[in-house]
């Protein structure tokens, strides 16, 4: 079923990571990504792995969930690894072979980097509800309102898009069943035939998406929505002591990584 797709899904919980302010988590993810790209040698990679595993443990997310999320990326990971293995110059593993020790080393680091990158962002989306995420983003980008960037509108659109993904998936499921009941065939035939077979799904889906958008706009207007100016929140975001600690730890981690790079570790 289509419903089984996980796309940065939020897992409710009450771990320390869940409780952090979304703004802190957003900043930390950026810090984490910068730090990750400082890694050159195996010691620095080991440090990133250690920090990642520690964060995962703190957030009570099981490794199984992360692996499940990584599955769709498998193709990209394997492809990058293969390219690196075969196209890196150096000493061959066996005389005459195209595979080099340098290639294996580089491929392994590349896989690690992609996996860590994805895991880091999963850590954010698994522990932060989409609403909190967009709220945090809006507040972080608040200074940009000074240069007339419609930050509120952008984040509002983002949260609405996120809100409607499950609804539209359910709708697609329903339309597919109905067209199947009329003998539509989505699985057989040539590529062109299958592309054509999507039409009976896409047209009703678009029609209903527009209808929903219309209804939503009316519902918002009838509740006097008029943009972000002077708007207050039901859930006020407040930084706490743990946020300060987390940010300091994050910066220390980044400093450590830069140091590792300087030392060539």
């Amino acid at each position: 079923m289509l419903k089984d797709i996980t796309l940065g899904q939020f897992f409710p919980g009450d771990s320390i990571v869940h409780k952090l302010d979304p703004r802190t988590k957003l900043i930390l993810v950026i810090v984490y990504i910068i730090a990750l790209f400082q890694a050159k040698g195996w010691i620095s990679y080991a440090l990133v792995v250690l920090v990642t595993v520690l964060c995962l443990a703190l957030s009570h997310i099981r490794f199984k969930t992360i692996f499940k999320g990584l599955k769709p990326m498998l193709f990209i990971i394997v492809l990058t690894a293969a390219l690196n293995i075969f196209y890196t110059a150096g000493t061959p593993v066996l005389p005459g072979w195209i595979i080099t020790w340098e290639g294996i080393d580089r491929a392994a680091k590349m896989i690690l980097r992609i996996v860590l990158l994805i895991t880091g962002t999963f850590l954010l989306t698994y522990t932060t509800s989409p609403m909190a995420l967009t709220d945090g983003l809006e507040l972080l980008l608040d200074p940009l309102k000074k240069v007339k960037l419609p930050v509120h509108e952008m984040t509002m659109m983002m949260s609405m898009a996120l809100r409607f993904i499950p609804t539209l998936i359910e709708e697609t499921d329903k339309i597919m069943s109905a067209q199947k009941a009329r003998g539509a065939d989505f699985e057989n035939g040539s590529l062109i035939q299958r592309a054509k077979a999507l039409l009976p799904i896409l047209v009703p889906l678009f029609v209903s998406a527009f209808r929903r958008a219309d209804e939503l706009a009316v519902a918002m207007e009838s509740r006097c929505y008029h943009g972000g100016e002077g708007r207050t929140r039901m859930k006020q975001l407040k930084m706490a002591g743990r946020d300060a600690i987390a940010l300091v730890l994050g910066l220390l981690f980044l400093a450590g990584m830069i140091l590792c790079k300087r030392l060539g570790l």
Partner: protein
Amino acid sequence: MAEIIVENLSHVYSAGTPFEKAAIQGIDLTIPQGQFVGLLGHTGSGKSTFIQHLNALLTPSSGRVLVDGEDINQDKKTRYRVKQKVGLVFQYPEYQLFEETVFADIAFGPKNMGLSAEEIEERVREAAGFVGVDESLFQASPLELSGGQKRRIAIAGVIAMRPGVLILDEPTAGLDPRGCRQIMDNICRYQKETGATVIVVSHNMDDAARLAERIIVFDHGGIAMDGTPEEVFSRPRELIDIGLAVPQSTAIAMALREKGIDLKGAVYTHEQLLDAILRAKGVDAC
């Protein structure tokens, strides 16, 4: 034409995950050809899951469904073929219209069956006739029509496949009283003229009482009651306990009986109510 036999049918959603949920359990049922069946049950009672098994849209977790003595889940071919024998109209079917013209949309089903152009045209005209859609609308866009008309075109799209069994999930939801009556009358006419089996899922007890020969009540994924309208509506208390309503006439009869007026027999249509009241007052029914 088709007889439906359901043997020990169960369906579990998301089996093997924390969200596992048995939607229907151990259903045994035989629906002979040509019967008009009303399917009742509150939201989440499993009736929608059940009807999607009858044309192999859902595969049973255990148990079998036989149409014309053939297990419909044998292989891909039988699963595909049964969709032509058992026509299923979903809730709010008008949201599934997609073609540019009314004609093309009704023709979608027959076209998928691989029929010739003449045969398709004949079937579209026939189906439009059954649901009372005028041929002058054939070239209009289905998206521009009124809600009731869209609904009828969507139903015609299934009827055009000439299914031996026609299943409709709340075909009158969201329509005005006249639209409801017209659609129910159209469905009745299809059943009478073609001898097809018709299964209607409904929350409208009055429709169920008026039209169905047999009423099946679903509750908690199983069959709670199964019988003629007379049998089912003579147990109004149970229906109310399940969370369903009774036909208006039955409700009035219950109220009158509580006041001490002795009405005889089962009452579930307006005529029966009138009859019973007249008889209780000592006047012979006309």
